[in-house]
């Protein structure tokens, strides 16, 4: 899970390997806040698989690549 200068840099780094998926740094920021925002809450409770999938769905990360087990 790495940050690159551009799609061109991702492609060159992959050097022919199968790519995963990419999102913009703005979308990453949204994802990070939605996913990690409660980790230090005093009354934190574990997320269920469905709660985590709902976060991804809300951010339009609905490609099968983003389907949790």
């Amino acid at each position, binding site marked *: 899970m*790495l940050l*690159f200068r551009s799609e061109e840099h991702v492609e060159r780094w992959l050097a022919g390997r199968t790519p995963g998926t990419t999102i913009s740094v*703005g979308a990453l920021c949204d*994802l*990070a806040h939605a996913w990690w925002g409660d980790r230090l809450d005093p009354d934190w*409770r574990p997320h269920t698989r469905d709660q985590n999938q709902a976060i991804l769905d809300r951010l339009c990360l609905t490609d099968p690549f*983003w*389907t949790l*087990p």
Partner: protein
Amino acid sequence: MNAADIALRNATYRRFVELGRAPSAPEVAATLGAPVGAVLAGWRRLHDAHALVLGPGMAELRMLNPFAARPTPFRVEAAGRSWYGNCAWDAFGVGAALHADCTVHTTCPDCGEALQVNVRDERPDQEGLVFHVLVPAAQWWADIGYT
């Protein structure tokens, strides 16, 4: 995950933020007034539940996601301290977890150029950078270190 393990997990995270580094099992045990063995046993259950990640000896913290217990290529400045994320996603998660503006420092894995992103009010100050995820979500925990 039972209530006692959740309490241990929350105490471990709280101590991490207070110290600005990973606490040892004796440090968390002292905080809770619990035996060190009970902390280690609880950490192992939390590791199995993917609530934290222990190192190879199963006695030290490796990841309190999004925080990394050791230096990584993803350094974050937030809340007056330097932290490390386990990956680019986690790096942005450090500011999110602390509810603080932050600056993420890393390098482009392709060209090695230093990248710096300032996040203010939950928005990055640049949009041209790209986040790449190599491993599909269904396999993230198969090898979380690689993911």
